[in-house]
Structure formats: structure tokens, C-alpha cells
């Protein structure tokens, strides 16, 4: 009898309806990809953006981490059931899951980082892309100006469009600074193999390259390590990688996922959700930039030049190429 009452009371405690707070603050949730919210990369940056929005736009923010790729649909649904006004999928890996959820719940607003559904974007989804070529252009400009051997290197992860935008933006920036500079290019065919990155970097250094830029995820750790050992210069990607080699990483081409997220949430708050479109954020929106530590690493005169260049790009006075075709056109305009 006693036992039964204990069990009964447990059931009572656990089954009382859970009431979600019913205030009218905007609710925004995000689902991370398998990297998790402390990945030192775009998931973390995304959460920082939401926290900023929480403070400045007075919204309610929450996140849900994914452990496996199969978690994406379930996590999107968890946030859907929690009554969020906008649900973020962080990273192109979630594209299929976001698309499916958006079709199932046409009244729910979704947004995704690093993916464009193109013409097929559902009316309740915003895709967010970054003009990576603009940051890479500045990085290339700095690299060419800093190079003493007039030879610089680029190491890409895989030959895919998103890496091409880094590659050709970088090349264009370098040639814009100094048309005589030689750019060595190679793909590592991996985003994880740091040892391979180091081997490619050493090879480029032996061919006289003294500034190396990478767009290859963890492969880049090897590139920066090689630069550190041989005392050459390196350029980081996505976040400020100066801490990896404080004397060697002269700048980093930043992707400010946080600013892009903040931008979209601010739009939503204003009642201006751009559903059905893909937003391309660049220098103008503060979504792409170079690292703040750059100012300590390069001469003041060059920094002034870079800042003028930044303004020119933001004003649309220079069109930065993001693929090979556009690059060839761009290269012809240079002397």
C-alpha cells in the first residue's frame, strides 16, 4: 500500500503539465551540427550571435546540440514544439533536415547558415551565405604586400564552390596588390588531415612561398604549424587564428556567423523576415572581415591601405571574383 502511494506520487510529480512561459518575447532557437556549441568555430559563433540578440533585442534564445547526423530532424522538432518563432539550422549539413521540416510546418520560420536552396527556397526559409571572397581578397592583398619572396600559397580543402570563393578572392587580392606575385595553389582533399596540411605547406615553403593561406578546416592547423616551425607567415580562416602562432599568423579571413544571425533576428523583430530568399552577407554587413589582431601584425601604412580597400569593397566599387570565370575577367582589368 505504502509502495503504491509512493509510486503514485512519483507519477503525479512527473506528469503535471509543463507550462511554457507565455510572455510575448520573440523566441529563437538553434540546432547545432555535430560539432556542438563549443566547437571554437561556426556553431559557437552562431550561439554568440543569438546571445547578443538576447541582450540587445530582448528575445529568448535557446540551443539544441546534435550528437549524430540522425539527430537533426528530432532536434528541429524539439525546438518546433517549444514554440520558437524562428529556428536556425547551423551548417550546410542540416540542409535536408531543414528543408523537410519547413515543408512539414509551413507556418514555422526557419533559417540555415551556409546553404542556399536557390530558386527552390520555401517561403518560410531564409538561407544565409557569406561572401567569403571579400575577406579572402583582403587576406590576399595583405599576403602579397607582406611577402618578401613575391611567392604566396593557397591550400584548399576540396575543389567545391565554397572553397573556390576563398581561392579566387585570395588570388584576386594578391594580384590587385602586386601583379607580379606568384600564387601556388593546392587542394588537400580533406578537411581533417592536419599532417597532410603540414606536408603541403612545407612543400610550398621549399618552393619559396613565405605567406600561406588555407581554407581547409583542421588541415589548416598543420599549415600554421609548418609556418611556425619554418618561421614563415600564415593567414588564418573563419575565426581569428592568431593564437595558434602569435608571431606567424599575420591576419585571418573572418566569417562572422554571429553578425549574420543577429542581422536576420533583427529583421524578424522588425517584422521584415525575408522568407523564400537567400541572403548574401559580406563586408558591408560586418559578416565577413579580417581579424582584429591584424593591426598588431602588419605595418600601420598597410593597415590604412587595407581600410581604404575595405571601404571600396563595401561601397561596391570593386567586384570581387568568386569563381574561375569571374577571376579571369578580373585579372584582365589589372595592369
Amino acid at each position, binding site marked *: 500500500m505504502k509502495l503504491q502511494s509512493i509510486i503514485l506520487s512519483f507519477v503525479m*510529480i*512527473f*506528469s*503535471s*503539465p*509543463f507550462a511554457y512561459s507565455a510572455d510575448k518575447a520573440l523566441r529563437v*532557437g538553434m540546432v547545432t551540427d*555535430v560539432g*556542438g*556549441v563549443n566547437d571554437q568555430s561556426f556553431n559557437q559563433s552562431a550561439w554568440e550571435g543569438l546571445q547578443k540578440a538576447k541582450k540587445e533585442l530582448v528575445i529568448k534564445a*535557446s*540551443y*539544441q*546540440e546534435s*550528437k*549524430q*547526423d*540522425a*539527430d537533426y*530532424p*528530432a*532536434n528541429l*522538432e*524539439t*525546438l518546433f*514544439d*517549444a514554440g520558437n518563432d524562428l529556428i536556425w539550422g547551423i551548417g*550546410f*549539413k542540416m540542409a535536408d533536415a531543414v528543408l523537410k521540416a519547413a*515543408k*512539414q510546418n509551413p507556418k514555422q520560420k526557419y533559417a540555415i547558415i551556409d546553404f542556399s536552396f536557390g530558386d527552390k527556397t520555401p517561403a518560410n526559409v531564409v538561407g544565409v551565405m557569406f561572401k567569403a571572397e571579400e575577406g579572402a581578397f583582403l587576406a590576399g592583398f595583405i599576403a602579397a604586400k607582406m611577402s618578401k619572396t613575391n611567392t604566396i600559397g593557397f591550400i584548399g580543402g576540396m575543389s*567545391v*564552390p565554397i572553397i573556390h570563393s576563398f581561392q579566387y578572392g585570395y588570388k584576386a587580392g594578391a594580384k590587385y596588390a602586386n601583379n607580379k606575385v606568384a600564387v601556388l595553389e593546392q587542394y588537400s582533399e580533406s578537411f*581533417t588531415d592536419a599532417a597532410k596540411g603540414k606536408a603541403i605547406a612545407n612543400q610550398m615553403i621549399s618552393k619559396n612561398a613565405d605567406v600561406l593561406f588555407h581554407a581547409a578546416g583542421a588541415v589548416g592547423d598543420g599549415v600554421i604549424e609548418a609556418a611556425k616551425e619554418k618561421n614563415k607567415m600564415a593567414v588564418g580562416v573563419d575565426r581569428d587564428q592568431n593564437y595558434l602562432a602569435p608571431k606567424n599568423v599575420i591576419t585571418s579571413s573572418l566569417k562572422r556567423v554571429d553578425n549574420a544571425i543577429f542581422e536576420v533576428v533583427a529583421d524578424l523583430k522588425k517584422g521584415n523576415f525575408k522568407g523564400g530568399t537567400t541572403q548574401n552577407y559580406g563586408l558591408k554587413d560586418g559578416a565577413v572581415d579580417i581579424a582584429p589582431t591584424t593591426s598588431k601584425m602588419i605595418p600601420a601604412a598597410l593597415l590604412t591601405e587595407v581600410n581604404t580597400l575595405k571601404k571600396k569593397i563595401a561601397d561596391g566599387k570593386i567586384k570581387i571574383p568568386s569563381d574561375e570565370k569571374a577571376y579571369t575577367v578580373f585579372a584582365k582589368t589589372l595592369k
Partner: protein
Amino acid sequence: MKKFLLSLLCVISGLLFGALILKLSGISAVEAYKVMWEGAFSRPSYIAYIMIRSTALILTGLSVAFAFRTGLFNIGAEGQFIIGALTAAYFGCAFHFSPWLQIPLVLLLSTLTASFYGGLAGFMKARFGVHEVISTIMLNWIALYFSNFMVMTEGFHKPNTETSEFINPTTSITFLENWKVSDAGSTWLAQHDFLREFLRPPVNAGIFIALICVIIIWIILSKTSFGFKLKAVGFSPEAARYAGINVNKKMTQSMMIAGALSGIAGATHVMGVSKNIAILAAHEGYGFDGIAVSLIGSNSPFGALLSGFFLGTLKYSGQKIQSALEAPSELISIMIGAIIFFIAIPVLFEKSINKILKLILKNEGEN
């Protein structure tokens, strides 16, 4: 009565310990458990998700439990899962037959390859005396990198992604997959709340396959002489050898069956839930969770079934604390780990239960 009290005490102390951990991190335990309870059972779709999540756990748990009965510690469920998933994804893309042929064929091929993969460890143990814990751990990594290599091969790799192509729709074991998003389906479902909710997740035949496997393994272990021989090897290989059982052969066979079960887990995951495989940076843990499932279920088929559901429920509903109460996922993992830990060590409570029972009996005697 004693057994029931024992399990109840284990679960309660596990939950209390979990509550302590939550409390120490400044999160209300009552609130957290409430979120978990609601997040697990308050909607049909949640129950469907738990079923989906538990399927793989039940099968890998069964795999570990089966090998354990023959005295083998199958750490390799993870690798066998990957091989099963890879085979299902590969042939699911390559073949274009009608579902009635395609599904059994792909399932059979996954079972065979994973069975071979598991058998490899058993064979190495039997033939060369390589300890199965070492070999299966190594085989896990070989499976992981082999799978990553295969995903990137031309024709199988989906361009510009880190995943393989999707399997052909005829390989899918998801219930009513096309119908539920079609116009007719969504109109009909709009009037049927329960089914609409229940079918929203990728509900699939995997759970029935898992149930059939549980029954088959139970029959093998307790109703056949083959199973008896396997268990005899588990109790004492020397005695079994003396009784005329070919111990080496039995070890290989046992690992083959264990491998097959994990392979089926991987195949149902691909055919029912994910529909493709991706490049893995690390092990996803389906096989390693199987070890916990097996141990909680005291290495019996039906035990694996129950504990598979239990762990599946904990894992699915535990995640919900994160967005609701802003708990870090590490904390949730620690809490789930603590609950499992307490449930896995009933021995700790056995003595105190005996004392309590004695006290109660004594009191009743005095009254």
C-alpha cells in the same frame, strides 16, 4: 518482491544521484525531470522518436549480450554497425529492384558482410589467440576509415557534400514515406491528429526487425542445442572442450551472429532513418551504447529489449533539458551516465535490501 524492490531502488537512487548533479550545477532537478518526462511521453511523435532511437540500441545491445553468453566481449559492435550501414547504403544505391526483392536482399547483404566482419575477430581469437577486445577495437577504426573512404568514391559520393548518395526509395523501410507528404496523405492526416503526429518522425519497420531478432536469439540461446553449446563455452571453455564441443568453431560462430545483429542495426538505421551515410569524424556510439544496454539487461535478449528502450528514452528525452533549461550537453551525459551506473550495480543494494526485508519481516512478526 525482492527483485522488484531492488530494481526500483536502483532506478530511484540513479534518479536521485542525477538530481544531485543537476542541483550542483544550479538546475532545478524537479523541473529537469519534468521536462524529460513530458519530452518523452506527452506526444505521439515523441514516442515514435523513442522507438526509432531504441531500435539500433536494442540490436547492438543484443549483439553484445549474445557474444557475452559465449564468454566473448564484443567491443566491435560499433564497427559492425558501420559495416552494416555502409553495405546497406552502397547496395541500396546500386540496386534498382522492386521493394519486395530489394529490401530483403539489401538487409541480407548487410547481415552477411557484418557477420563476416564480426566473425573475423572470432576467427582470430580461435585460430591465433588474439584477444577479441583488442581485435574488435582495431576493427572499429578500420571500419570507420573504410566507410569514410567508400563515401568519397566516385559514383557513391554525393557531389559537394560529405555524404553518400541517398538510397533508392525502393530500399526504404520507413512507413508511408511518400504518402504522408503527398496531397492525399496530408489531407487525410490533417483530420487524424494522433497518426499525423505519430508519422511525423521517420517511423520504420526497424523496431519489428529488432523484435524478431530478440525472439530468434532467445530461441537460439534457450531452446536449441547450438545455443546450449555456446553457453557451455561461455561458462567454461575447458569443460566444454572436454565435453566434445569444438570451442574454436563456436567462438567464431558466436562472433558471426553478434556481428550480424550489429549489422542489421546499421542497415535498419540507413534504410529507415538516415537514408545515406556521412563521413564520420569519430564513432557515433551506437555500438558502444550497446555495451551499456547489454549490461543493464543482464546479457539476456529480453533484458536487451527493455534496457534498449530505457536507454533510448533517456537519451531522447535527456536532450530536451538543453533547450528548455539551458543545460550543457556534457551535464546531461553525466546525469544519464550516473543513472545507468546505479542501475548497472544492483549488487550494491542487495545487502541493504536484505537488511530492510529482514527488519520488515521482524516487525511484522512482533506485531
